[in-house]
Structure formats: structure tokens, C-alpha cells
């Protein structure tokens, strides 16, 4: 669920590469469509629903899903589908922020560590060990509790807790590439270390880091939803996906309030995971 395990998953030798034919399988296509829809929801929510996410019709509280209200209504009579659609932007952007932090900070640490080696590697390596030693979700909880309960802080916390994973993967990849014959060849051809780093090492190392970033995007959505579920994100009336599940769970008689946003989270993350696997296999 948190970032730490993604590393082990990626490092475990070339998984289902048996069928790595070119061409896009139907599941990958569906995944891309799901992600496209999610992106459109977050950019133009008003195109997808006429209801307001904030103001409800008190006459229709806790209605079951119907043609008018696809996901039913909540205790204030607000359309749950509209709440989900309007909550998308915050859920998606915060996950992007988290991935960006992990990717930029982690890759930089990993790159410096793997390429420079020596004392720098030892120092940064210890730092990464320490980040890794605190269970990812607990670290995120502690950071968000220090920064304050806001979705953006939850995103930062999630990003920081993923730094170690990016750093480790980048370091491993850089070391792998750095030792290869073509990098040594570039020195023999008069290249210097910086040239080798920029033209040979990075282009060969970034790919699996990119796959991790995609995977991590899905994981971040879940971690941020979990933080929101615990109430560590923006308070209502904002409608982050995790928060919707959390506020829905009080109404035992209206399970759709939980299932609808939960389904959206699951579908999104599943699609992202599928795309990440497709990226990993289509080398």
C-alpha cells in the first residue's frame, strides 16, 4: 500500500515478460480510457454533471442510485456522482504532487549516490535507510500531522515517504548502467564523466524509474485517500475520494455512498497499475 513495497516488486526479475508482443491488449485500452475519463473529470467537472457538489436538495436525502442520481445522494441530498466528479481534481493533483516530490528528490539522491559512489553514496545511503526504516504510512501520518491537516500536506507527506524508493531504484539502475561496457567505451572515446552521465547513464536508467513513477501514482492516490479517510486532508465540504468513503460509512443504510467512490478509486488505481505493467513489459 505504501511506496516501500513497489521497489521489491519492480526489482524482482523480469516478471510476466513472456507475452511482451507489440500491440495494445483490450485491458490496456480500457485502462487508458478510464484514465482519460478521470483526467477529464478533474479538468472539466461541470461538463459531466449538472448538479452542484456543495448544495443539495434536502428533499431527496440518502436516495438510492437512480437515473437522476447515478451514485445516489448523501445526507444533505447532494448528488454523490457530482461530489465524486468534483473531488477528482484534488485527488489526482495531490497524487501528482506526491509522485513529483518522490521522483525529483528520490532520483536526484539515487543518481548522485550511484554515480558518484564513495562517501556521498555512504552518506545518502544511510539517509535513505533511515527514511525506509520508518514504515511509509506512519511517516506520512507524522509529516501530515506536523504540517497540518490539508490535502496538499497529505500529498507532500506521501511524496516524502516515497523518496527512499525512488532513490533506491535510481541508484540500482545507475550502478547497473554505469558498469556496462558502453559507458566505459564512451570514456575511451574521449568522453568525460558528465557527458557519460547525461548521454548514456540517464537515458538508460530512467525507464524503470518512470515505470515506478506510474506505479507510484496509483499508490499515492490510495495513500492520500487513506489519509483523507482518517480525516487528515481538507475538511468537508471538499470531496476528496477518501473523505467521501469516510463520510459515507456512517450511513449503514446507504452503502452506495461508500461503494461508489470506492469503486472509482479501485478502477483508477487498477487502470494505472495495468498501464504501468504494460510499460514495464513493452521494452
Amino acid at each position, binding site marked *: *500500500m*505504501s511506496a*516501500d*513495497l*513497489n521497489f*521489491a*516488486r519492480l526489482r*524482482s*526479475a*523480469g*516478471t*510476466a515478460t*513472456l507475452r511482451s508482443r507489440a500491440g495494445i491488449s483490450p485491458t490496456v485500452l480500457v485502462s487508458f480510457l478510464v484514465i482519460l475519463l478521470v483526467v477529464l473529470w478533474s479538468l472539466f467537472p461541470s461538463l459531466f454533471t449538472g448538479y452542484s457538489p456543495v448544495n443539495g436538495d434536502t428533499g431527496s436525502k440518502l436516495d438510492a442510485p437512480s437515473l437522476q442520481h447515478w451514485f445516489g445522494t448523501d445526507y444533505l441530498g447532494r448528488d454523490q456522482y457530482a461530489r465524486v466528479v468534483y473531488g477528482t481534481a484534488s485527488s489526482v493533483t495531490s497524487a501528482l504532487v506526491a509522485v513529483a516530490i518522490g521522483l525529483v528528490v528520490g532520483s536526484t539522491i539515487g543518481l548522485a549516490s550511484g554515480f558518484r559512489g564513495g562517501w556521498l553514496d555512504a552518506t545518502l545511503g*544511510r*539517509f535513505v*535507510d*533511515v*527514511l*525506509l*526504516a*520508518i*514504515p*511509509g*504510512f*506512519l*511517516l506520512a*501520518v*507524522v*509529516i501530515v*500531522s*506536523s*504540517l*497540518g491537516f490539508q490535502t496538499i500536506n497529505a500529498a507532500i507527506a506521501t511524496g516524502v515517504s516515497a523518496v527512499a524508493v525512488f532513490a533506491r531504484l535510481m541508484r540500482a539502475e545507475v550502478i547497473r548502467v554505469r558498469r556496462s561496457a558502453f559507458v566505459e567505451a564512451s570514456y575511451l572515446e574521449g568522453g568525460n564523466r558528465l557527458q557519460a552521465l547525461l548521454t548514456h547513464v540517464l537515458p538508460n536508467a530512467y525507464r524503470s524509474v518512470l515505470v515506478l513513477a506510474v506505479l507510484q501514482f*496509483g499508490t499515492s492516490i*490510495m495513500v492520500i*485517500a*487513506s489519509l483523507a*479517510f*482518517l*480525516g*487528515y486532508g481538507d475538511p468537508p465540504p471538499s470531496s476528496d475520494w*477518501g473523505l467521501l*468513503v*469516510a463520510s459515507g*460509512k456512517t450511513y*449503514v443504510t446507504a*452503502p452506495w455512498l*461508500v461503494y461508489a467512490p*470506492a469503486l472509482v*478509486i*479501485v478502477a483508477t*488505481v*487498477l487502470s494505472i*497499475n*495495468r498501464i504501468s*505493467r504494460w510499460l514495464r513489459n513493452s521494452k
Partner: protein
Amino acid sequence: MTSGYGRFALARAGQAAVVVLLAYVLTFLVISVLPGDAITNSLRDPQSGLSEADIQRIVQYYGLDQPVLVQLALSLGRFLTGELGFSLQSNLPVAQIVGDALPSTLTLASTALAIAVVFAIGIAYGAHYAPPRWAGLLRSIPSFFLSVPNFVIGLVLIELFAFRLHAFTTTDPNSATATLFAAVTLAIPVSAPLAEVLIASLDHESRQEYALVARSRGLDGAQLFARHLVKPSALPSVAMVALIVGELLGGSVITETIFGRDGIGTVVQKAVTGEDQPVLQAVVSLSAVVFVAVNLAADLLTPLLDPRVNVREAANA
């Protein structure tokens, strides 16, 4: 060999101790430096019900009127002697709070670990030996498990088994059945990466030439699995055990909240809402200790299980 192993174990233990100390420092800095003066804020909160004398005593104890570095030194010094301080909310010793909550979380986490391992092995074995149709389905399960947040799993299980099938009641969260379902909630997201790694290494190992050679000696599928493939395939998962324990600790915060259990997770949640810095500091540092200890155990075990690992090289790594 033994002296080589001894030196290796000592070096690893030393590194582990350093990591624990640094993790303590990092946690301290995150908690006390980032938000400014949270600790005194919560002390001054009229709802805390503390007298002026109590507050003075606490300020004295934590060195709150002194620079952060001094506070850190005080706090670290006490941590090293095993003293965890006092809760700002309840004024109880942190050790007592943690001690009370621990058994419940331990039961939950160990049950979850057992379930996760069983799930993972079942999925991996099935993915490898079931008829192709089922195997394909089993291979996609980890990815599905990983896409469902564990609060969703928990809520669905409660909805289905408590509210509809009445297999357990949420009012008695410590019953065996309730614990079992809570453990399943916690186990599912943990079992998935374990299963993925197992599947991948089984794939890898069964493609190795030695598997071919063993088959050419007349071993059947089950013999090949039991004698040749299990051990090398399981080795990468040993290294994952620490990560899994970390996941279980982190996941317990949510699982315990959903199932209404009183455990470490609940303690964390209360400490976060109540800005109870010492409790948070203690729980997070202890989690790091657990993580590092399990990791150390896995590290020390690996050379014993895997004859290829050279301890003298590993000690310098």
C-alpha cells in the same frame, strides 16, 4: 567461517543501531521543528485540564524552554535508557500506553502476516501449476489486490459479514471472528506484492537450466517444486519480510480504526488528533526499531540460507 560470520553480524548490528538512532532524530525533527510550538500549544489548550504546575513540570521535563538541539539531546538520552516520557493528553507514561495497546496489535499483525503468507504462496503456486486458464486469472489477482485501499476492503467485509451475514458484530471487535476479518483486511494488500515477487522468482527459477536438468532426471512437477524451486524462490521474499512488517504497522492504523480495535494504530490516531508529541515520537521510533530488527534478522539469516552469499563481502557492502 564462524569468525567471518561473527564480524558480519556485528557490522550489520552496528549499522542497524545507527539507523535506529537517526530515525529517532529524524522523527523528532519532523514532529517538533516543522509546526513550530505544537507541544506548548496543546499544553495551553484549556481543555487539556492541566494545572499551571503540571505545565511547568512538563516544560521542565522536555526542556521546552531550551533550544531544539537541547530538547533533542534530552529526549534522545532518555530514549537510549529506555524511557519514553509521558503523554501530554492523559499524563500517563508512554510506555504504559504502548504496552496496553501492543497485545491487540500484535495479535492482529501476526494473524495478518500468517494469512498474507498463505495467500501469497497459494496464489504463486496456483499461478504456476494450475491449468492455464486459472493460472492467468491468479496472476492478475495481486494487481487487483493492490488496487483496493484497505479501508475499502475493511468496509466491504464489515458490510458483508457483520451487517448481512452476522458472522461477527462490530461491537465486539476483539472476538476471534472479528479479529480474523480485521486480519484479512490487513493481509490482502500485503499478500499481493509478496505473491508478485514469489511468482516472478518462481518464473525465473523454473526457466533456469538446473530446472531443465532436474526434469531430465525424471522429477515430476511437484518434486521439482518441492526440492528445487521453493528455496531459491523464497529467498527474495525473506528480504521483503521487513518491508511487510512495516506495511502491517502502517496498515494497522486504518484497520484498527475501521474495526474499532484498541491498538497501536488507534494510539497513533489519537496522538495525531491530540498533538500528543511524546506518544507519536515513541510509537514511530519503536516502529523503526521493529522494522530495523526484522530487517537485521533477515540480513543475518540470508547467508545461512543462501550458500552463495559471501559474508565477508556482504559485511563491507
